Each structure stands twice: as C-alpha cells, then as structure tokens.
C-alpha cells in the first residue's frame, strides 16, 4: 500500500493532515515511537535519556514531514534554526548591550529578510514598477510552506530572549523541535517558545486521556474541514470568480457561505493540529474561541486566530507604543498593526486593504466604546458579525476589480429570486444554515460532547473514526483542497 514515492517530496502533493498518505506515515511514525525506550520512573538518568531519544525522533519526523511538504527548503529551516539558536545564546550570555542589539538585529534581519524575499519580493517589485511605470522582472520564487508561521515563532523566541523574559533553549534539539514540530509547522497555531520548551523537559508520551481527547479533536477538525468547508469551497469559488453568471441572491448567499468556509477551514485545521499534538502528549495553544459570537471588533480579534493576534499585539503593537502615548498614537498603531497583519496574509493589495478595513474598524470600536455599550447585546453581535463578513469579501475577492464587481452583483439582489435560488441551491442553503446553527450553538453543548467523547472506550473511537472516514471518502471523491491558510 505504501510505495517508496510516499516518502519523497512531491511539489504537487503537499502532505495534508487530511490525506491518506499522512495517515499511513503517521501510523508508521507511531509504530516507531512505541518501540523507543520509555525509561523508568525510578532512574532519573534513564528517564532523561528516553526523553532525549523521543525528542530526537520527533524532530527527525518533523524534518521529514517538512521535506515531504516543501522539499529541500528543509535546509532553510535547519539553517534558520542554527542561526537563531546561537544568536539567542549570544544575546542571553553577553553583558554588552550593543552586542545584544546586534544579535537581535542580525536574527530579525535574517528571518524577516527571508520572509520578505520569499513572500513579498514580487509584490514589491511589481508595485514599485507600477508606481514608476516600469515593467519589472518577475522572480521565479516558490514560497516555502509554513515560512510565515515558523518565522513568527523564531521572532517571538529571539525577542523574548532579548527582553530577558525567556531563558534560551538549553539544547539545539529542543529549539529545533520548537520551530519544526510537525503538527504546527505548516499553518500554526503560532506557539510561544516557553509554552513548548517547558513541555520538552520531560516527554512521557500520551496518557489514555490524551489519546481519546486527541482522537476526538482530530475527528472534529476533519469533519469541519472536509464535510463543511470543502463542500462550501466549491460554491464560494464560483461566487467569487464566476459571479457574472449568478444572481444577486446567490452572491449574497455566497458571502454567508464564505464566512463559514473560512472559519470551519481554519479552525478545523487548528483542531487537527492541536489534536495531533495531544495524541503525542503535547498541548498547543487554542486558536479560536467562538469568534463569530464576539460583541465588538476588539473581542473578535481576541477570539479569531488568537495566536496570530496575540503575536501581533506583543511583537508589533506594543513595541510601536501600544496605547501608552495617547489615543491618537494608539489609533495609528492599531492601523499599522492591522495593515501589516493584512499583508502577512498574502502579498496582494486586497489583503492590505482588508487589514486597513479592520484597523479602521478597531479605531472606531475603541473611540465609540461608550456608544456601543449602550446598545443591546444582540445588535452589537449582529453588527460585528456583518462587519467581519464584509471584510471577508475583500479578503476573498481575487482582485480589487472583482471586489467591486461582486459587490455590484450582490446589489442586484431581488427578493423575487429568493425562492428560485432556494430551490436551485438547496444543498448550499441547507449546509449554510446548518453551519451557522453550529456556529451559534451553545458552547456548553460542544463542551459536553467533548467530555462525553473522552470517556468513550477506544473501540468506540475506532468505530467513530471508521464512520467518519467512510463519510469523508464518499463526500470528497476529489483530492483534498489545501487549507486556505496553507498558502500564506
């Protein structure tokens, strides 16, 4: 079943968690993990040795995983690891302030420089070219998968060490695994160094609860991604590309469907990453907390892609001055942070505008906080949700021209079309309604389901997994579509 080429990098088949290849490789990896020595509780030395072996094994598999998804860019990851590790030591152990600063700058310049080169070189050369009316050469650049995520992890590590908040990792292997740990390597969550490094002191492997909770979490993520997001993806692609052939009602339906798609896609992916880490006995930070129930835009950003927004807060907004220099400076800082956050999502003007849109939204949110608080909670929820949904249109539209056109199309909404559309698109309508019902279902329900699942015996998990797999195989006869956040 597993042929040799399953181990070799294939640019057109990234190793997605949803693929059968990953399942097979993960089972193989696990068989190896089981065979490793586990050490005994009585001997500290053997325990430490066992931990080291496990970390080395995890690191080796993570590097292989990255090789499988990105080919020889794995070398780039290793180089970045080496540079960061030794620069962090230099920063931590040097008494001289200038040397510490030089170390930090060197590290930031390398990581952000690489990110800028791979992600933004063409964008900037095009933009500058457009500005001066030049025809710029296009560089032939392939974006290494996950570079946006591990660059941010490396920056947070270096800055924390520089600020003295974090002791540098005591072994290269530990730091290497922090950057490359395969569940979070490709698309987050963006983990802080202290959160993972502290877990590497003693690696015991999962306990029974970890396995059950992890299996449930992965299954939940798979269902979100493959059953809901992928199904809606086809419709949303049509809406944002071929909107000319659709009615206004269908386009508006597409807006609501896309809000669901991006949420289920990315939160499903995060669930899988967190669940996979849990299966190995590690805990990763949460990335989503019911974002669409937020009552204000600030609250939305505390609930959506949490690891990114807190990263932006701690390493961009606060260093810029945060809210410490008066409201005017704070507003400017918010807008700058969101602009760059938008640009992080992709090198295109509509992402920048999307960031600006949210930055301005946050400013309004902060300025008119009092007014907001006097309005009823449901109205605030409704307004926040629709602000965000409007933002997604800007986010998703292939270009600014498409953005304009798709809005113009939506403007032609006719109530009389409603029933025709309901009939013709009954599957999308039903799934969208169901999805939004799930989004707004009480949190206690999800919590209960999770706790119930943790108490089920393993055979029940196996049965559930088989049913889910069968469902997935039947629903998606097409190859899995890459995660939305995969390409950023």
């Amino acid at each position, binding site marked *: 079943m597993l042929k040799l080429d399953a181990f070799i990098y294939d640019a057109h088949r990234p190793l997605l968690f949803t693929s059968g290849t990953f*399942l097979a490789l993960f089972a193989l990896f696990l068989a190896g993990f089981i065979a490793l020595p586990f050490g005994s509780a009585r001997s500290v030395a053997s325990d430490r040795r066992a931990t080291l072996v496990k970390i080395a094994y995890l690191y080796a598999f993570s590097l292989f995983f990255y090789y499988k998804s990105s080919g020889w860019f794995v070398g780039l990851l290793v180089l970045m690891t080496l540079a960061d590790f030794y620069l962090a030591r230099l920063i931590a152990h040097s008494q001289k302030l200038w040397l510490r600063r030089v170390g930090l700058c060197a590290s930031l310049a390398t990581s952000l420089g690489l990110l800028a080169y791979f992600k933004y070189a063409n964008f900037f050369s095009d933009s500058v070219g457009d500005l001066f009316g030049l025809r710029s050469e296009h560089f032939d650049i392939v974006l290494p998968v996950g570079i946006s995520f591990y660059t941010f992890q490396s920056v947070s590590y270096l800055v924390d060490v520089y600020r003295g908040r974090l002791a540098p990792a005591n072994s290269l292997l530990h730091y290497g695994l922090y950057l490359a740990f395969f569940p979070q390597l490709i698309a987050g969550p963006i983990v802080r160094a202290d959160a993972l490094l502290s877990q590497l002191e003693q690696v015991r492997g999962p306990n029974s609860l970890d396995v059950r909770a992890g299996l449930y979490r992965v299954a939940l993520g798979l269902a979100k991604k493959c059953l809901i997001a992928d199904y809606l993806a086809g419709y949303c692609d049509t809406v944002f590309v071929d909107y000319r052939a659709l009615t206004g009602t269908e386009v508006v339906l597409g807006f609501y469907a896309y809000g669901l798609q991006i949420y289920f896609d990315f939160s499903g992916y995060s669930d899988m990453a967190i669940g996979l880490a849990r299966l190995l006995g590690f805990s990763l930070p949460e990335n989503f907390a019911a974002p669409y129930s937020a009552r204000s835009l600030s609250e939305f950003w505390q609930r959506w892609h949490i690891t990114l927004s807190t990263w932006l807060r701690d390493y961009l907004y606060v260093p810029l001055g945060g809210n410490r220099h008066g409201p005017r400076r704070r507003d400017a800082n918010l807008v700058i942070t969101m602009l760059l956050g938008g640009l992080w999502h992709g090198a295109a003007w509509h992402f920048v505008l999307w960031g600006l849109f949210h930055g301005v939204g946050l400013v309004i949110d902060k300025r008119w906080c009092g007014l907001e608080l006097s309005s009823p909670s449901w109205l605030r929820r409704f307004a926040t949700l629709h602000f965000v949904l409007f933002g997604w249109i800007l986010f998703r539209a292939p270009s600014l021209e498409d953005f304009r056109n798709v809005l113009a199309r939506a403007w032609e909404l006719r109530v009389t079309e409603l029933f025709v559309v309901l009939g013709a698109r009954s599957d999308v309508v039903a799934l969208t309604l169901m999805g939004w019902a799930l989004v707004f279902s009480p949190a206690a329900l999800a919590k209960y389901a999770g706790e119930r699942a943790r108490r089920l015996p393993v055979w029940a998990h196996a049965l559930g997994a088989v049913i889910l797999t069968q469902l997935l195989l039947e629903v998606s006869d097409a190859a899995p579509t890459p995660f939305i956040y995969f390409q950023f």
Partner: protein
Amino acid sequence: MVIAWIRSRRPLLELLSVLLTLLVWSGLHAARAEPLAIAGHELKQPDLSEWFAPARPGAAAADTAPERSHPLGSTQQAFGAALPGPLLAGGAARGLAEPGSSASPRTAPAPQRILMLGDSMIEPLQQRAAAYFRATGYKFISVIWYGSRTLDWGKGSRLAQTLQTYAPTYVVVVLGSNELMARDVEQRALHVQSMLQTLGKLPVVWVGPPSWREDRGLNAMLARELGDHFFRSDGLEFQRKSDGIHPTDASGAWWMDRVAEWLRSRPDQTQLVLAAPTGPPRHHAPARVWAPPSR
C-alpha cells in the same frame, strides 16, 4: 517484562490500533473497483451504430443507410436502424462537390470519428462544428461536462472511459474557461499532461477558452504544454450572451470558422480537410452531458 512493556505503552498502542483500523478501511475502499460515476442527467444514448459504422472513403456522404457491422450488439443496431438522421449527413456530398470549397472534391478525406469534449464552451461551437464535419463526411460527437476544468478531466477515469466508449480517431478538447482565474497554473499543467497521456497517440487539438477577462497565465501554460496543437481564443473578440461569458450563437459560429481555418492549415496528422458547410442547418445535440463536478 512483556506485560510491563505493553502497559507502559498502552495509550500509544490503542492509538495505533485505531489508525491501523482506519488504514485497513481506507485500503478496502480503494481496492473496491470504482464504478463509473455519472452525475446529473444524461441524454438519450446516441446511436453508436452510426458512429462506429465503417465509413467507406468516398462513400461517406451517401444518403443510404450505412453498414451495420460493428461490435455493439444487435439490439442497438435495430434501435439504430429506426432512428432517422444518422450522423453521416447527406449534405456532405453536396458540400464536397461545391465549387470553391477549400476541400478538393477529388481527394476524399480519410474517415474520422471526431470527438469534441470539454466544458460548456462546446455549446456555442458545436452547431457550426457539426455542420463542417457533416459536410466533409466526418462523424462527430460532442460530450459536455458542464463546469469542468483540466483538473476534473486530468484526474479520475472519466476521460479514459469517454475515449473507450466513443473510440474516436480525432479529439477536439474545449477546456479552460472554468479556471481562467486559477493561480496554480503550474499544477494545472500537470493535469493537462495527464490528459495528454491518457489521450496517447490520438490526434488532439485544443481550443482555448474565449476569455472574457485576462487570465493568470492559463493560456500561456496551455500554449506551452500543447505547442501548436493549441488554438488560442483569448485574443478574439466575441459577442457574449447575457451572462457576459458565453459567446452568442452567431459569435460561436464565427469562432468555429476561425478554428476551421486553423484546422485546415495544420501541418501534421491533425490536419482536417474541411468542406464549407452547406445545406439546411441541422441541430446537433451532444452525445452526453454531465452535471458540474462536485468540488
């Protein structure tokens, strides 16, 4: 010893057992022969006896009922006999004999079974195409998979099965309109290559999408992959239907005229001797229609 080993690894072993169950299950799924998935509605299966009847060079245009010796069972032959309006049209003789038509009336073209497959852009092309091929004495069938992309044809078995069903001698692909906006052009190139591999040694030409807006390198990629087997339509000016995308019937006929000129002038075995269409217009319906692929 063994028991202690197992006990210390029990959660991992449990996990492994779940994963192995899944692997076995998906392996079983893959092993099951994939049935021919035909989604959506299907038109009445056309009479393949006409399609497969050996066309006698020079006699292709005869109005008489063609021979009925072909491998497709007697019921279908009987069925076929009852059907008027075979694919071989009577207009061909007139077309061939027409003075001034570009095909020489002396050299009868080698018989061809021309299969046109692809997306909805076949609709504006096929009436005029049928007229051309009928006039020349070629057999012609079109197969439309609405909303399909190179991705859909390049993957899965539909292309192979279509080729098996119709066993064409010449294939015209009309594809690309549903992926003009695609960014992952290089990935699509792989699907095009996979399609070409499935098509094998069959003579193939590819009519590019009548772009209604600038693409992201799709036409350039098709031109690169297909070389001079690619008819580029993105520079042409079309009149569009109200959807702003599909060419009108008149514009589609004009488009086919451009394609026909190009087919006549081809250097290799994909050259077609095409007579000018004459005679009363006759409606051509696609042999098979598939609903858009689920994405």
